[in-house]
């Protein structure tokens, strides 16, 4: 398992860096936010930019060739997500490709794959993954019921914090067909079209100005063809897809944190108080040095998490362990550094004029998404203890 990018992966990272800096710099996210606030796009991303990403093949990266993918692996994807983080670029790459696409790749029947994979990879359709119900992510806590009614299933309940849910063509909904909340058994996955009768989608305006939605399912009736995989056995595929999403999100946080850190160190060198650059003060130097150390530690865990997703020698527990480590440590470093970035920028750090706040807000959302630090810490410990 290699913890550095290969030459091809580095090349992809360089291309992504160049492309995003030109087409989707932080200024573009700021504009998107301001227009969104005045009632512009509800999608939270620029559709034309997403089209270009698709044309460059990014949406095909993680999938096997027989499904129309490039089989370039999660590490390749991580190289892109790191650059996405640096520029705070918004797109449905995580929601529709990494998360929803992976569920269909891992749990979908041939017919379901034929119906959806090409459309997702081609950017013609979007699917959003609806898992969370409680305020904090915990996929085993799914309570939304799916009752058998003859040949059909009837889904009733709510989903919250569904990334890129507004404007999605369909949802993958995790629902309980057996067992009780907290149990991994008894969870089933359904594809629910956005226009299904009884489904209500409403926007949650989040502080990162991205697209998040609440779903209310009021007796949504679905045929058995909507079921992904076997009834009651959806958790494994769901968790595997979530792990891919977690490491990609960790890579995004790493990129965002790196960018924020670089900006802050630059500021320490140029901001003058008491006739000297504030970066000459040891009180700030030591804190900045610790930030650097944590950032490097986070990078190692992110590289390991990405590589683990592509490593056929690891089992699901081995992948889960490294995915949780990556999400935990990237979140930890992002948390420390975003707080320090605001503090070290002083009064300017709390103004909307600087981009520091945009990074702080996106990082906060990314930390909470797909499992916060406490969730992944517990998961890492339990997986490790179970292996011992």
């Amino acid at each position, binding site marked *: 398992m*290699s*913890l*550095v990018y290969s030459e091809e992966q580095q090349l992809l990272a360089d291309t992504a860096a160049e492309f995003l800096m030109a087409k989707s710099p932080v200024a573009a996210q700021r504009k998107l936010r301001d227009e969104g606030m005045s009632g512009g796009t509800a999608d939270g991303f620029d559709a034309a930019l997403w089209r270009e990403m698709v044309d460059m093949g990014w949406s095909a990266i993680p999938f096997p060739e027989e499904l129309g993918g490039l089989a370039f692996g999660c590490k390749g994807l991580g190289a892109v997500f790191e650059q996405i983080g640096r520029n705070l670029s918004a797109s449905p790459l995580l929601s529709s490709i990494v998360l929803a696409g992976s569920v269909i790749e891992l749990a979908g029947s041939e017919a379901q794959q034929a119906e959806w994979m090409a459309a997702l990879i081609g950017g013609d359709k979007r699917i959003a993954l609806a898992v969370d119900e409680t305020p904090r992510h915990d996929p085993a806590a799914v309570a939304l019921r799916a009752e058998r009614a003859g040949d059909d299933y009837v889904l009733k309940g709510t989903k919250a914090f569904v990334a890129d849910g507004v404007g999605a063509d369909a949802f993958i909904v995790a629902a309980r067909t057996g067992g009780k909340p907290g149990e991994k058994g008894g969870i089933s996955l359904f594809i629910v079209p956005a226009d299904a009768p009884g489904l209500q989608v409403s926007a949650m305006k989040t502080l990162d100005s991205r697209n998040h939605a609440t779903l209310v399912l009021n007796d949504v009736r679905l045929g058995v063809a909507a079921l992904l995989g076997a009834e009651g056995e959806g958790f494994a595929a769901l968790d595997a897809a979530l792990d891919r999403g977690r490491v990609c999100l960790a890579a995004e946080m790493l990129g965002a944190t790196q960018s924020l850190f670089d900006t802050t*160190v630059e500021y*320490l*060198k140029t901001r003058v108080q008491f006739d*000297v*650059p504030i*970066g*000459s*003060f*040891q009180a*700030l*130097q*030591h804190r*900045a*040095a*610790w930030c*650097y*150390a944590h950032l*490097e*530690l*986070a*990078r*190692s*865990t992110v*590289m*390991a998490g990405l590589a683990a997703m592509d490593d056929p020698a690891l089992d699901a527990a081995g992948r889960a362990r490294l995915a949780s*480590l990556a999400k*935990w*440590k990237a979140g930890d470093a992002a948390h420390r550094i975003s707080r320090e970035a605001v503090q070290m920028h002083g009064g300017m750090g709390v103004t909307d004029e600087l981009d520091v706040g945009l990074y702080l807000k996106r990082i906060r959302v990314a930390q909470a998404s797909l499992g916060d630090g*406490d969730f992944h*810490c*517990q998961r*890492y*410990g339990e997986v*490790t*203890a179970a292996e*011992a």
Partner: protein
Amino acid sequence: MSTLEDFRRETRAWLEANCPPSMRTAMPDGELVWGGRTVEFKNEDQRLWFERMRDKGWFCPDWPAEYGGGGLTPEQNTVLEAEMRRLRCRPPQINLGIWMLGPVVLEFGTEEQKRELLPPMARGEIRWCQGFSEPNAGSDLASLKTSAVDAGDHFVVNGTKIWTSYGDKSDWMYMLVRTNPDVPKQQGISLLVVDMASPGIEARPIDLISGKSSFCQVFFDNVKVPKGQLIGPLNGGWTLAKALLQHERRAMSKFGEFALPTHFDLLSIAGKYLPAQDVSSPADIALRQRAYAMAMDEMAYSLTAQRMGEEARARKNVSGLMSIMKLVHSEQEKDKFEVLADVLGHRALGWEGEAFEAQELAMTKAWLGSFAQTIAGGSSEVQLNVIAKRVLELPEGGAGKQGK
């Protein structure tokens, strides 16, 4: 014409034929072999492995053959290290002189010094200790006062060195001495090598809060040191000291690869001492979560060591990564022993005797021992200064002369 691949094949075959199987296992505590005038072997395999590697010149594989080295190119040396790692070969001996002083003598020594000092080192015959710190020169190393006064054909050395690891067991010392007290402090320092058997030297072991230690204080009372034992220019020792400290960091990380102190596995110890999940109180659960987080930090560190190795092999600049390793590891060790002490409760409060298990007593000693880790070998504060200045290139401040 031999290519690198041929070399790899030959090396692999030689190691497979010559490294005894028992030397390809994880090294238990206390099975390090220290080179020196008298080498102690615990078993025949240790002796065989030591002698075979010595005769091959592979105690110092990348030194020139004329000084007793293996004469390998840097590329071949990388291959050898990789093959040894692959076969999990133990290091045949530990010899800080080879790793730290050797490269400095190669770079700065005279031809005569190279011929005199290097071959015995390469044969593992001399055990070296380091005389840098003094009671009043710790983090501010350049303020050292041990003096070497010119007395014609020799220097007369007076003063004391402290925190000298194995000062009482070593054959020779390389030491920094003050040869000119009348110039700015960095400009009056020289590097000497001294035979520890010289009259006037006394090494006293130091007891620590954790008990017995390998550290010594070494006293010099009118010790005669021949002029030929000055390495590099007179009063030019500070440059050499910085080079040595660079090699020290590398040596320590190399040392860390195999000479891990008794490893306390946090999660299994937490499993043993904390109540089962279903009868855990919220406090037990919170403590277990702290143990998990600590284990994750440890994993992040070991992945970083792995990544640094990989980047170094790819010829990338790893000086930034290298600068955080000592800081992170020593701080983590301290944190880890705090968590362990909490997990063990009063079982972590034993000093000696039958009321406590051996592992519990070892844990207590290790907790006390961990305090030294963020002080020795460049305190955490010095490490942070180095990162701030060399890696982040933050500007010098009023206190900026520290930690350079």
